[in-house]
Protein backbone atom coordinates (compact mmCIF):
# COMPACT_ATOMS: atom_id res chain seq x y z
CA UNK A 1 0.00 0.00 0.00
CA UNK A 2 1.26 3.48 -0.75
CA UNK A 3 2.94 5.37 2.13
CA UNK A 4 0.51 8.28 1.74
CA UNK A 5 -2.47 6.04 2.38
CA UNK A 6 -0.87 4.35 5.39
CA UNK A 7 0.11 7.72 6.91
CA UNK A 8 -3.30 9.31 6.58
CA UNK A 9 -5.03 6.24 7.96
CA UNK A 10 -2.81 6.25 11.05
CA UNK A 11 -3.55 9.95 11.58
CA UNK A 12 -7.30 9.30 11.31
CA UNK A 13 -7.04 6.56 13.94
CA UNK A 14 -5.21 8.92 16.32
CA UNK A 15 -7.75 11.66 15.64
CA UNK A 16 -10.64 9.36 16.54
CA UNK A 17 -9.03 8.59 19.90
CA UNK A 18 -8.52 12.32 20.49
CA UNK A 19 -12.21 13.06 19.85
CA UNK A 20 -13.38 10.34 22.23
CA UNK A 21 -11.07 11.43 25.03
CA UNK A 22 -11.63 15.22 24.98
CA UNK A 23 -14.05 16.29 27.70
CA UNK A 24 -14.05 20.11 27.60
CA UNK A 25 -16.87 21.09 25.24
CA UNK A 26 -15.39 23.99 23.31
CA UNK A 27 -12.17 22.09 22.76
CA UNK A 28 -14.23 19.13 21.63
CA UNK A 29 -15.72 21.19 18.79
CA UNK A 30 -12.27 22.23 17.55
CA UNK A 31 -10.87 18.69 17.83
CA UNK A 32 -13.90 17.30 16.02
CA UNK A 33 -13.41 19.80 13.17
CA UNK A 34 -9.74 18.79 12.94
CA UNK A 35 -10.78 15.12 12.75
CA UNK A 36 -13.21 16.06 9.97
CA UNK A 37 -10.40 17.71 8.01
CA UNK A 38 -8.30 14.53 8.37
CA UNK A 39 -11.23 12.54 7.03
CA UNK A 40 -11.46 14.93 4.06
CA UNK A 41 -7.83 14.21 3.18
CA UNK A 42 -8.51 10.47 3.52
CA UNK A 43 -11.47 10.72 1.16
CA UNK A 44 -9.40 12.61 -1.43
CA UNK A 45 -6.67 9.95 -1.20
CA UNK A 46 -9.35 7.29 -1.79
CA UNK A 47 -10.32 9.15 -5.01
CA UNK A 48 -13.72 10.44 -3.87
CA UNK A 49 -13.87 14.22 -4.50
CA UNK A 50 -17.66 14.54 -4.14
CA UNK A 51 -17.65 12.87 -0.74
CA UNK A 52 -14.67 15.00 0.34
CA UNK A 53 -16.50 18.21 -0.65
CA UNK A 54 -19.59 17.12 1.24
CA UNK A 55 -17.66 16.26 4.40
CA UNK A 56 -15.63 19.49 4.21
CA UNK A 57 -18.67 21.68 3.91
CA UNK A 58 -20.61 19.93 6.64
CA UNK A 59 -17.70 19.58 9.04
CA UNK A 60 -16.60 23.20 8.91
CA UNK A 61 -19.94 25.01 8.51
CA UNK A 62 -22.85 22.84 9.58
CA UNK A 63 -21.59 20.80 12.46
CA UNK A 64 -19.51 23.31 14.51
CA UNK A 65 -22.30 25.88 14.28
CA UNK A 66 -24.95 23.51 15.58
CA UNK A 67 -22.61 22.37 18.37
CA UNK A 68 -21.58 25.90 19.41
CA UNK A 69 -25.14 27.12 19.58
CA UNK A 70 -26.17 24.05 21.58
CA UNK A 71 -23.33 24.74 24.03
CA UNK A 72 -24.42 28.36 24.34
CA UNK A 73 -28.02 27.46 25.01
CA UNK A 74 -26.87 24.91 27.52
CA UNK A 75 -24.83 27.51 29.42
CA UNK A 76 -27.47 30.25 29.12
CA UNK A 77 -30.07 28.15 30.85
CA UNK A 78 -28.05 27.70 34.01
Amino acid sequence: MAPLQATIMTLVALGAVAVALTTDLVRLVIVSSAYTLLLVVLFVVLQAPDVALSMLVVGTIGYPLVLFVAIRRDRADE
Partner: protein
Amino acid sequence: MSYLPFVLAAWIFVVGIFGIVRSRHYIHLVVCLSLTQSSTYVLLLSIGYVKHGGAPIFKDVPQGTRAVDPVVQALTLTDIVVSVTVAALVLALAIQAKKHAKTMNPDELRPVRG
Protein backbone atom coordinates in the same frame (compact mmCIF):
# COMPACT_ATOMS: atom_id res chain seq x y z
CA MET B 1 -1.15 -4.34 5.40
CA SER B 2 -3.70 -4.65 2.65
CA TYR B 3 -6.50 -4.90 5.21
CA LEU B 4 -5.55 -1.65 6.99
CA PRO B 5 -8.60 0.43 5.97
CA PHE B 6 -11.00 -2.23 7.25
CA VAL B 7 -9.13 -2.48 10.55
CA LEU B 8 -9.29 1.33 10.71
CA ALA B 9 -13.08 1.25 10.28
CA ALA B 10 -13.44 -1.35 13.06
CA TRP B 11 -11.10 0.71 15.29
CA ILE B 12 -13.07 3.93 14.82
CA PHE B 13 -16.33 2.07 15.52
CA VAL B 14 -15.11 0.62 18.82
CA VAL B 15 -13.48 3.94 19.87
CA GLY B 16 -16.74 5.75 19.15
CA ILE B 17 -18.76 3.38 21.30
CA PHE B 18 -16.14 3.70 24.04
CA GLY B 19 -16.61 7.47 23.92
CA ILE B 20 -20.38 7.07 24.20
CA VAL B 21 -20.18 4.74 27.20
CA ARG B 22 -17.68 6.93 29.03
CA SER B 23 -19.23 10.35 28.36
CA ARG B 24 -20.48 12.71 31.05
CA HIS B 25 -22.29 15.24 28.92
CA TYR B 26 -24.93 14.83 26.25
CA ILE B 27 -23.15 17.02 23.72
CA HIS B 28 -20.02 14.87 23.99
CA LEU B 29 -22.27 11.84 23.49
CA VAL B 30 -23.68 13.25 20.26
CA VAL B 31 -20.19 13.97 18.89
CA CYS B 32 -19.08 10.41 19.68
CA LEU B 33 -22.21 9.11 17.95
CA SER B 34 -21.26 10.93 14.78
CA LEU B 35 -17.71 9.60 15.16
CA THR B 36 -19.14 6.06 15.17
CA GLN B 37 -21.11 6.94 12.06
CA SER B 38 -17.98 8.14 10.26
CA SER B 39 -16.52 4.64 10.51
CA THR B 40 -19.18 3.43 8.08
CA TYR B 41 -18.10 6.05 5.53
CA VAL B 42 -14.49 4.83 5.72
CA LEU B 43 -15.61 1.22 5.30
CA LEU B 44 -17.83 1.97 2.30
CA LEU B 45 -15.20 3.98 0.45
CA SER B 46 -12.49 1.39 1.12
CA ILE B 47 -14.65 -1.39 -0.32
CA GLY B 48 -15.16 0.57 -3.52
CA TYR B 49 -11.50 1.41 -4.08
CA VAL B 50 -9.84 0.07 -7.24
CA LYS B 51 -6.05 -0.14 -7.31
CA HIS B 52 -4.52 2.66 -9.44
CA GLY B 53 -8.01 3.91 -10.17
CA GLY B 54 -8.95 7.56 -10.57
CA ALA B 55 -12.04 9.48 -9.53
CA PRO B 56 -15.26 8.56 -11.41
CA ILE B 57 -15.40 11.95 -13.16
CA PHE B 58 -14.89 11.74 -16.90
CA LYS B 59 -14.50 15.37 -17.93
CA ASP B 60 -11.51 15.69 -20.30
CA VAL B 61 -10.56 12.15 -19.34
CA PRO B 62 -10.85 9.46 -22.03
CA GLN B 63 -13.48 6.77 -21.66
CA GLY B 64 -12.28 3.52 -20.28
CA THR B 65 -9.76 4.90 -17.77
CA ARG B 66 -9.79 2.87 -14.60
CA ALA B 67 -12.00 4.51 -11.95
CA VAL B 68 -13.26 3.67 -8.49
CA ASP B 69 -16.79 2.59 -7.74
CA PRO B 70 -19.32 5.46 -7.92
CA VAL B 71 -22.23 3.75 -6.18
CA VAL B 72 -20.67 3.72 -2.68
CA GLN B 73 -19.71 7.37 -3.13
CA ALA B 74 -23.31 8.23 -3.94
CA LEU B 75 -24.51 6.44 -0.80
CA THR B 76 -21.95 8.19 1.41
CA LEU B 77 -22.41 11.71 0.13
CA THR B 78 -26.10 12.10 0.87
CA ASP B 79 -25.62 10.35 4.18
CA ILE B 80 -23.08 12.91 5.42
CA VAL B 81 -25.39 15.89 4.91
CA VAL B 82 -28.36 14.13 6.47
CA SER B 83 -26.42 12.94 9.52
CA VAL B 84 -25.71 16.48 10.69
CA THR B 85 -29.43 17.26 10.65
CA VAL B 86 -30.23 14.17 12.68
CA ALA B 87 -27.49 15.13 15.15
CA ALA B 88 -29.14 18.56 15.44
CA LEU B 89 -32.43 16.82 16.26
CA VAL B 90 -30.78 14.80 19.05
CA LEU B 91 -29.18 18.00 20.40
CA ALA B 92 -32.58 19.72 20.40
CA LEU B 93 -33.95 16.79 22.42
CA ALA B 94 -31.08 17.16 24.89
CA ILE B 95 -31.75 20.90 25.26
CA GLN B 96 -35.41 20.17 25.99
CA ALA B 97 -34.48 17.44 28.46
CA LYS B 98 -32.34 19.93 30.32
CA LYS B 99 -35.38 22.12 30.95
CA HIS B 100 -37.11 19.30 32.83
CA ALA B 101 -34.25 17.44 34.45
CA LYS B 102 -31.85 20.41 34.98
CA THR B 103 -28.88 18.27 34.03
CA MET B 104 -27.00 17.20 30.91
CA ASN B 105 -25.22 14.26 32.50
CA PRO B 106 -26.50 10.93 31.16
CA ASP B 107 -25.72 9.22 34.48
CA GLU B 108 -28.01 11.51 36.43
CA LEU B 109 -31.12 11.35 34.29
CA ARG B 110 -33.77 9.19 35.81
CA PRO B 111 -36.58 7.62 33.76
CA VAL B 112 -39.93 9.37 34.11
CA ARG B 113 -42.20 7.64 36.59
CA GLY B 114 -45.95 7.80 37.04
